[in-house]
C-alpha cells in the first residue's frame, strides 16, 4: 500500500492527467465489450459467455483486413461489421434455439463455441501471438496535456468509444428501433402480437452486441498481442462491469467501466497488490447493497 504515491499523483496535474487517461483507455474498451454483453442480456435474457471470444474474433478480423489492405479504417470496419454479421447468424442458427431454456444450456452452448472459435483461430492464424502494429498515422510522439503524456491513438480510442456509446444510447432511447428493443425486453409476446418481426429484431440486437465486442477487439489489435483465448480476461472484467452497472443498463456499463478503469489506473500506484481485489470488493458491495446494480432495474 503506497497511499503517498497515490495522493502525490493526484496533486500533480501531469500525473493526474496521465492516470485519468489510462483509466479511460482501460475503461472504454471494457465499456464496449460490457455494453454489448449487457444489451444482449437485457433484451434476449441470454448471458453470452462467448462474448469474449467475439472480442477475440473482432481483433483477428481486423488483423486480417489490415494485412490485406494496410488501411486501419478497413480493419476497424472488418472487426466491427464482421462480428455484427457473425453475431446475427450465430443468434439465428444457435442462440434462438435456447431462448427460455435453463441458464446451464446457455452456458453449455456458449462454452462450446468458445472452444470452437479458439480452435478455429488456431487453425487459421496459428497458436502463436500476433501483433498488428500501430498504424502509421498514429505512430507519433505522445501529446502532452497539462504536462502528462497521452498517446494520440489512445485519444482516438477513447473518442470512438464515447461516440459509439453515445450512438448506442441515442439509438435505444430515441429511435423506433430502440423503442422496439425496449418493448421486446419488457414484453416480447406483445411485440410479436403487434406484428413486429421479433426474429429479425433479436438477430439485430445480437448483431449490435457482437458489433460492439468486435469493435473493441479491432481497437485493441494495434496495442495488444493477439492470441487464441485472449477474450477470457476481458470477459471476466465485463461480467464485473455488468454486475456493478446493472444487467441490461448501457449507462450502468459506462459508469462501471470507468470505475474499473480508474481503479486499475490509480490502484497500480496506491495499492498495486490489491487492484484485482478492489474490483471484486466493489462488486461484492454492490451485490450486497444494491443487488440489481447501480443502474439496474429494481426487482
Amino acid at each position: 500500500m503506497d497511499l503517498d504515491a497515490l495522493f502525490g499523483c493526484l496533486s500533480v496535474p501531469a500525473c493526474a492527467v496521465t492516470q485519468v487517461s489510462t483509466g479511460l483507455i482501460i475503461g472504454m474498451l471494457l465499456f464496449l465489450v460490457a455494453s454489448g454483453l449487457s444489451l444482449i442480456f437485457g433484451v434476449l435474457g441470454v448471458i453470452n459467455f462467448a462474448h469474449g471470444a467475439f472480442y477475440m474474433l473482432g481483433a483477428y478480423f481486423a488483423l486480417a483486413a489490415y494485412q490485406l489492405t494496410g488501411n486501419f479504417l478497413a480493419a476497424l470496419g472488418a472487426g466491427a461489421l464482421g462480428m455484427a454479421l457473425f453475431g446475427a447468424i450465430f443468434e439465428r442458427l444457435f442462440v434462438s434455439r435456447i431462448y427460455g431454456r435453463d441458464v446451464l444450456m446457455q452456458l453449455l452452448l456458449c462454452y462450446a463455441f468458445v472452444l470452437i472459435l479458439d480452435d478455429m483461430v488456431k487453425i487459421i492464424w496459428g497458436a502463436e501471438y500476433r501483433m498488428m502494429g500501430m498504424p502509421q498515422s498514429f505512430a507519433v510522439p505522445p501529446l502532452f496535456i497539462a504536462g502528462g503524456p497521452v498517446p494520440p491513438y489512445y485519444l482516438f480510442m477513447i473518442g470512438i468509444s464515447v461516440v459509439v456509446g453515445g450512438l448506442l444510447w441515442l439509438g435505444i432511447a430515441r429511435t423506433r428501433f430502440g423503442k422496439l428493443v425496449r418493448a421486446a425486453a419488457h414484453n416480447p409476446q406483445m411485440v410479436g402480437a403487434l406484428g413486429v418481426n421479433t426474429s429479425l429484431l433479436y438477430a439485430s440486437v445480437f448483431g449490435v452486441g457482437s458489433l460492439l465486442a468486435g469493435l473493441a477487439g479491432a481497437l485493441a489489435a494495434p496495442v495488444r498481442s493477439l492470441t487464441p483465448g485472449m477474450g477470457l480476461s476481458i470477459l471476466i472484467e465485463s461480467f464485473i462491469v455488468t454486475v456493478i452497472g446493472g444487467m441490461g443498463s448501457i449507462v450502468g456499463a459506462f459508469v462501471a467501466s470507468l470505475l474499473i478503469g480508474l481503479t486499475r489506473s490509480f490502484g497500480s500506484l496506491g495499492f498495486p497488490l490489491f487492484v484485482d481485489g478492489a474490483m471484486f470488493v466493489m462488486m461484492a458491495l454492490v451485490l450486497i447493497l444494491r443487488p440489481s446494480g447501480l443502474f439496474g432495474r429494481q426487482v
Partner: protein
Amino acid sequence: MTRSNAPNPSLAKSSLTPSRRQLLVAAGAGVAVSALGAPFVARGAGAKLRIGMPTILSGRVAILGTSSRDAATLAVNQFNASGGFGGREVELVVRDSKGQPDEAARVTRDLVNTEGCEIIIDAEASSGSFAVNEVVGDLGVLCLHTCSETSALTADPKLRKPTAFRSARQGIHDAVAGGKYAAELAKANGLMKWMTCSPDYAYGRDNTAQFVEYLTIFAPDVEVVNEAWPKLFEPDYTAYVTRVLQVQPDAIYSALWGGDLVSFLEQANLYQIFAGGLQWFSGGLADPPIVNALKQLPEGLHSVFRYDPDYPDSAANKAFYKDFDAISETEPTNWSWQTYTAVQFINQALAATAGNTDGMALAQEVAGATVDSPFTESGTITMRAEDHTIIDYPVAWGRSRPEPKGFQDWERGDWEQILTMEKEWKQRQGYL
C-alpha cells in the same frame, strides 16, 4: 411364453469359441500387458526407437512447444539421415499437455506405457517439468528437460532423479551473469534507481528476486524503488507503463516473456518511455520471434542471449538456422537450441550404449558428456555429472538494434565466476 436358457444355436460352443477360463486368462494377460506397458512389444529388432515429447502446443505459450518440437524434429531427422544406429531409426512422438502439469504427467505416463516411448524429452514449462520429473523418476526412463529454467529442478538433491537431466539454461546462472552485467552498467552510468516489472507467478518472482540479489551483490549502492507484478497474460499494460512514468527509474529489470513482453513494449512505445534514456534489462527479449513480433524495437535494450543466428558467428550456427527455417514456421527460440542440444546428448548416449535404451545405462553416458554445439563460442556444451545440468552454454548479454531488428554487442558471461557463485548459492540453499 417360455423362457429358454439355451444359447442361440448360432453362438453355440464350438472348438473355435474360447472357454470362460480361456477368456479370463486372456483378459488377465491383457491387463498385465497394459500394466507392464506396451514398449516391450515395440522393442523388436529394427523397430523404430520412439522418443516421447510432452510439451505445450496450445494457448498463449504454444511457441514454446512448437519451436521445441521443430528443433527436436530437425535433430532426429539429421540423426536418421546419418543412418540412425544399427539401422534403427528414431521416431518422435509429440503430445500436447496444454500447459497443465497434471496433463503433462498423464501424457508422459501414456507416452511410455501405452505408446512405447523409451526416452522422454520434457519440453514443458517449469510447473509441468516438475510433474514430468516425478513420473520419469517412477518409470526409470531417460529424460531430458529442455525448457524449465527453475534451478531447483536439478540443483535440489531431493528432487533430482537418477535418469533425468536438464538441457536448458538455469535461473541461477543467468542471475549471476545478468547481475554482473547490469551492475557494471549501473556503476558506469549511474543507474542507481531501479524498478522491476515481472509476471506475478513463481517463475517471474523467483527470476526477479535472483537477478536483484546478484545485482545488489555486484553493485551495493543500487536501490530497487518500485516493483510491478502484472498478472500472467495481462492484456493491458497501460497502468504499468504509466507507473514507470511516475516512478521515473533509471533502469528496469523485467522477466516478462512471449506475447506479454511484446504487448508491454508496444504499449510502452506509445509513451516513448525509452526516449529519455531509461535502461531496460530483460530475461526474455532476444528470442527472434519476439524481436520480429515487435513492430518497433527501441535501440539499446539489454537482454540475455536467447538465440541469434549471428552469435556465435559460425558456419555451424548459420547451418542450424537455415535447416531449422526449412522445416519450421517460426524462427528458432531459446527452447529450440536447448531441445536440439538434448537430442544431441541422447544420440551420443545411444551410440555409446549401442542402442540399449535402459534408463540407467543411458544416464551413465549422458552424465558428464560433452557434445559439439553450434550455439557456443567454445563449440561445446557439457552435461555436468554432479547435478545433471548443462554448463558452458551461452549466457551472454547484448543490446538491441532497431534496423535490422536484432541484437548485437554480445558480452560473454564469465563461467568461472558463475560456477563459483552458484556453489555458494547451493550452500546457502542447503543443496550441498
